[in-house]
């Protein structure tokens, strides 16, 4: 459905996207995962025909993003990272406006947006600028869906939204996926990666890996330890200073730590840290999460 071949784009001399290629299948929920500045937005803007790539070729439903941009705009829905609806129009006015611009009506495609719109309908006469973050998100999604697109492109839709709204939002995406819409979504949140069918891990304009989240985790074969002590700040410094430590990152209440060449045992960490006078020390094996995979991949670069 979406095909990207060797796409590169630079802003002046700064490369934003470097030689990226991948395919998204029809009906797939595909995630672009990566930190800020990884090139997710640039890639999406190229696909959305808002930006022209320097090199490479991309097609959406076999339509070329440069030559067939007019056709593409009819079949894709886009939700930019920033809330981009008219803040001084009401919920209903926004929806009607975008429906008309796409030469359709709200009634015609009401079925598709019903589940989402019903939640904001009580506020349909409120100005969009006065909505809460979660409701703005729902309105933006409704507007992006109003013309029944075949492909939905969402740029960090859950950034700045509370945890409950985030979960609701992903539930909605799952429902849309069931209706056969291909979805490309970007997010900086690793925990959302597992909700996608496949993800592309991106960093500094490059794709590090593309796979299902499960496969990515399965492929991670390193020994991972969770370590905790009374003084977490000192703990991370001591671990990073030790020559046998490969990586140490804070994950919630614990540090996730790997040893050089995975030959360091839990007891070795324990002994080293006890020598450093750490109190209430805990060291144990832990199964990797997608975030561990990502951190590991980033460190490789």
């Amino acid at each position, binding site marked *: 459905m979406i095909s990207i071949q060797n796409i590169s784009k630079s802003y002046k001399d700064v490369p934003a996207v470097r030689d990226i290629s991948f395919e998204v299948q029809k009906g797939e929920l595909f995630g672009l995962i990566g930190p800020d500045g990884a090139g997710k937005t640039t890639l999406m*803007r190229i696909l959305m025909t808002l930006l022209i790539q320097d090199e490479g070729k991309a097609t959406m439903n076999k339509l070329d993003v440069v030559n067939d941009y007019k056709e593409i705009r009819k079949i894709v829905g886009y939700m930019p990272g920033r809330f981009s609806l008219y803040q001084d129009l009401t919920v209903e006015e926004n929806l009607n406006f975008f429906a008309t*611009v*796409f030469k359709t009506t709200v009634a015609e495609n009401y079925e598709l947006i019903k589940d989402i719109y019903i939640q904001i309908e009580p506020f349909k006469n409120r100005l969009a600028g006065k909505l809460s973050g979660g409701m703005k998100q729902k309105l933006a999604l409704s507007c992006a869906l109003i013309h029944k697109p075949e492909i939905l492109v969402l740029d960090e839709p859950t950034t700045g939204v509370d945890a409950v709204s985030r979960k609701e939002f992903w539930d909605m995406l799952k429902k849309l996926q069931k209706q056969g819409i291909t979805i490309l979504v970007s997010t900086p949140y690793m925990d959302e990666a597992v909700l996608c069918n496949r993800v592309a891990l991106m960093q500094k304009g490059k794709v590090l890996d593309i796979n299902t989240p499960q496969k990515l985790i399965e492929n991670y074969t390193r020994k991972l330890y969770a370590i905790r002590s009374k003084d977490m700040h000192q703990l991370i410094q001591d671990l990073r200073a030790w020559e046998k430590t490969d990586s140490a990152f804070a994950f919630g209440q614990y540090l996730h730590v790997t040893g050089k060449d995975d030959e360091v045992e839990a007891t070795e960490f324990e002994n080293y840290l006890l020598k450093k006078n750490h109190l209430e020390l805990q060291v144990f094996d832990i199964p990797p999460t997608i975030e561990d995979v990502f951190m590991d991949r980033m460190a490789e670069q």
Partner: protein
Amino acid sequence: MRTLFYVLQKEFIQVRRDKVMLRMIIMLPIVQMLVLVYASTYDLKNVNIFLVDKDMSSTSRQLASKIDASPFFTINNTSFNPEEGENEILNNRDDMVLVIQKGFERDLMREDKAKLQLLVNAIDGQSAQIGYFYAASVIGDFNKHIIAEWKGLPDFKPPYQINTPSRFWYNSELEYKWYMAPGVLALLVTLIGLNLSSTSLVKEKEQGTIEQLNVTPIKKIQFLAGKLIPFVVIALFDLSFGLFLARMVFNLPIVGNLGLVFSFGVLYLIGILGLGLFVSTVANTQQQVMFVTFFFMMIFILMSGIFTPVESMPQWAQLIDQANPVYHFMRVLRMVILKGSHFEDLIHEFVALCILGITFLTLALKRYRKTA
């Protein structure tokens, strides 16, 4: 068509919701017409004179009262010390010092001539000249009378005299307000049109809504028409409101055809709005837009001939003015409203406004691209 209708509706709703903008649309014509027209008058009144009468004779007193009686002059202060008068000018309290030397009457009677000294504050060259001219003519008039009185002739007339009775056409009472009003109307329309159009497009950029619109199949022309038409309507509303005020408040005679005024208004606005759109396609924030439009407004207005006649500007400046839409529109307004000029008289302005309008619009269309 339906799309265009919705785009227009959206723009009007946005204007209606913007309370500041709405107030400006109503307040601007009122304030500009009532304050600017009254304030920027060149009618010379209330020239304050400092009188130094060292002669204290009946003739000098007669001269003083003659000057004081004129509607232009007020004798504000008197003293025997001319330096005090100079200080008054320095303090900006008086505009002129009239010094009558001791022996004024005696010299006049014995030698048939006497001298007066007139010190004029010429910071503002134009009003100094006019003031001096007025004072000189009052004194000249007085001169004629005393000659007649002393020679005992009933109404002395010099033997040869060229008389130029004058009549002022199109504004017979030399009502400066009538001259100013069409000029201020042109400013009003420009201000409203340029500001509304230039900020509205850049607002879409700032709020990011342009990004959302750009991925829709909306046509460039529909989008730009949505930005043009509402502001043409609003600016024309302000033009008629301003005209109405001018008619009611200072009885501005509208000699020409109102249809012609509004037709030119539409033509002019298309150009001005095109310029506004062009500016907002170049700029990224409302601040930048305000700065650039302010730059254009200053040049356009100061060169438009609202305060100083364009005919007295240097030749190169007059040439530049051909590219100044405000200049052409102001001429049209003055000619049609005050003189009742017909379309045939305005061909030059029509062609100039057409060329400027097409240029600005083409620039805006060229610069506004849907892909970055």
